[in-house]
C-alpha cells in the first residue's frame, strides 16, 4: 500500500521545545480522555512566539490544522517528557515532522504513541521552505518534494513499523511480544 501525503508545510526554526509545542498550562488535559485529546490538538504549537510565527498553526476556535507536515531545525521537541507534545500535534492532524534532529524523549514518544513520523532530514529544509509551501511526503521512498525539488530523508528504519502499527502496544501485540488485548 503506497503511503503519500500532500499538504502545506509549517516551518519552524531550531530548539522548538515542548513548552512551545504545548504550553504547560494545558497539561491539565488528560490525553486518554477523548474530548481532552481533541482539545489538546487545538493548542498545538500555540507557545511559538507571535512575532516570529505570525501565522497560527491551528486557527483560533478550531481543533485541526491545515498543515499535515511540520518542517523544523535542530533539536525539535527538546525539554520536558510530556507525551502531550506529540499527541497535541497528532490530534491537530499532523502526520509527520521533518527536522534536522530531534530530542530523544520527543522522538521516543512519537514512536511509542504512533502519533507522528519523526523524519530526520539530510539537509536543512527549514532554511529553504516557507510556511504554506505545498509539499508531498512519500513514506515509501523517504522523500519530500516541494517547489519542484525532491529531498531525500533519512529512512525511519526499525521505528517505522511501530508507528505504522499505531504505537508500541499495537506493535508488541502484532509481533506476539505481549498478549492480545484483554476485553475491557
Amino acid at each position: 500500500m503506497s503511503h503519500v501525503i500532500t499538504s502545506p508545510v509549517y516551518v519552524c526554526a531550531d530548539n522548538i521545545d515542548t513548552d512551545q509545542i504545548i504550553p504547560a498550562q494545558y497539561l491539565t488535559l488528560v490525553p486518554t480522555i477523548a474530548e481532552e485529546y481533541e482539545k489538546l490538538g487545538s493548542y498545538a504549537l500555540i507557545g511559538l512566539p507571535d512575532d516570529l510565527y505570525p501565522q497560527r498553526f491551528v486557527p483560533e476556535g478550531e481543533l485541526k490544522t491545515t498543515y499535515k507536515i511540520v518542517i523544523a531545525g535542530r533539536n525539535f521537541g527538546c525539554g520536558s517528557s510530556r507525551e502531550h507534545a506529540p499527541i497535541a500535534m497528532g490530534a491537530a492532524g499532523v502526520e509527520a515532522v521533518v527536522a534536522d534532529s530531534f530530542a530523544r524523549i520527543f522522538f521516543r514518544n512519537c514512536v511509542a504513541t504512533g502519533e507522528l513520523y519523526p523524519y530526520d532530514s539530510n539537509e536543512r529544509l527549514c532554511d529553504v521552505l516557507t510556511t504554506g509551501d505545498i509539499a508531498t511526503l512519500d513514506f515509501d521512498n523517504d522523500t519530500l518534494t516541494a517547489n519542484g525539488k525532491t529531498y531525500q530523508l533519512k529512512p525511519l528504519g526499525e521505528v517505522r513499523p511501530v508507528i505504522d502499527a499505531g504505537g508500541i502496544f499495537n506493535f508488541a501485540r502484532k509481533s506476539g511480544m505481549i498478549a492480545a488485548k484483554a476485553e475491557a
Partner: protein
Amino acid sequence: MTLTEKILARASGKSRVEAGDNVWVNVDLLMTHDVCGPGTIGVFKREFGKDAKVWDKQKLVIIPDHYIFTADSMSNRNVDLLREFVKEQGLPYFYDVIDDEDGHWKFDAALGQTKKQYGSRYTGVCHTTLPWKGHTRPGEILFGTDSHTCMAGAFNQFATGIGNTDAGFILGTGKLLIKVPESMRFFLEGAMRPGVMAKDVILHVIGDIGFDGATYRAMQWEGPGVFTMNMDDRMTIANMAIEAGGKNAMFPCDQKTIDYVNERTKENGTKSEFEPVDIDADQRFVYDKIFDLSKLEPTVACHPDPGQRKLAKEMGNVQLDRAYIGSCTGGKTSDFLAFAEVVKGKTVKIDTFGVPATTKVVQELKDVMVDGLSVWSILENAGVRMTENASCAACLGGPVDTFGRLNTPMKCISATNRNFPGRMGNKESQVFLASPYTVAASALTGRITDPREFIS
C-alpha cells in the same frame, strides 16, 4: 563498560552490553505525578483492561507536585484521579496533598498562596522527594514521567524520563525496551572557589557542549572534584543533563552516597539492600574532557535556551523585573542557605519569590538558625515572598494563578533549570538561569550581578 552500561547489563540479565544495543530492562522503580499520572493510568487501563493490576505495588511511587496550589479545577481533579487509582490498586507510596483517602482536593484561593494548604503526607517536588523518602538506591533502574528524572543519577542510579505510553507499558509489565546510550565523561578536578556553586558547573558544561550536545547520551561525572561535592551539589548537576539533551546522568558511588541512602531507607523503612556499580578500567567514551573547578566563575544561561552561556560579571547591564528561587534543581535547603547568606540583613530590589522544593525544606528553613534568626525569617526580612506550599510552582509556568508565574512579559533571573520561551509563563518573557548565589545578588541590585560582589 561505563557505569551506565554496567547497570543496564545487570538489569537486562546480560554479562555485557554496548552503546547502541537495544535491551529489555527490569524496572526497579516507576515514578509518576499529577500531570502525567492520569494519562499513564489511562494508557494502562486502555491496554491492559479496567481490572488490571500494576506489576509490583512496591515499585511504583506517585507524587502530586506540579499543579497543586491552584484553583484550576482540572488540576485539582487530576490529584483526585491519582488518589482513586491508588485506592483501587492498594498502593503504599502515594504522597497525597490531603490526608482523607476518600476526600477531594480543592485549593482554597481565599487562604492565599503562602500559608500551608496540605496534609501530613504531602512532600512536594518528585525528584527531591524520591531520595528523601528512601526510594533512591545506587545500581538500580528508575523511570519517571518527567524529564528531570535524570536527577537520581547523582546516586549512581540509571534514571531517565519517559512518556505516558512507555510508563503505561511498565505499569503492566515491569519492563521497558531501551537503547544503551553512548557515554560522555566529564572529569572534574580541583574545587569550586567561593561564590561558585554546582549550578555554575552544569551551566558551564552545557554552554561547552551545547543545548543538544548530549542528545541520546549518558553524562558520566568522574574525578576528584566530584568527591568534594555533597549530594545536593551532585543532584543539581545530574538534574540538568536533560538540558543538554542527555538521556541520563551518572555519578560514581562513594561513602557520601552510601551514608545518605542508608539513612533515608532506614528512616522510611524502604528497601535497604543495593549494589552500586564501580568504575571499570576499560570504559569507552565518545567524549572525554577535564574541567578544572577552580577556574569556574558565576555563570548565567541567557534567554532563550540553557546553552546560552555568559559570565555573570559580564551582564551587569541586564535589568531585571523578578528573581525566583525554587524547583528540584534550585529549591533544596542548601540552595536557600546560599541565598540567605547573600541577602541577610539586606533588602531585595525587585519582586523575589521563594518556593521550597519539599515540605521538609520548609521545615528545615524554619528550624535552622543563623545568628538567632531562622533562615526563613532572614529571607522574609529581606523582602523575599516565601511560600510554605512546596511544589514545582512557576518553574514550569503552570495555571495562571500559580505562585511566582510570569504573567506578563518580563525579565526573570531564576535558580530553576529551563528557560525556553514561555517556560515560566508568558511566552514573551525572558528567563536567565543562574545559581542561588547569583540570583540572590541580582535580586539585591535589580540587574544581573556577580555574587562575589557580596561574598567575602
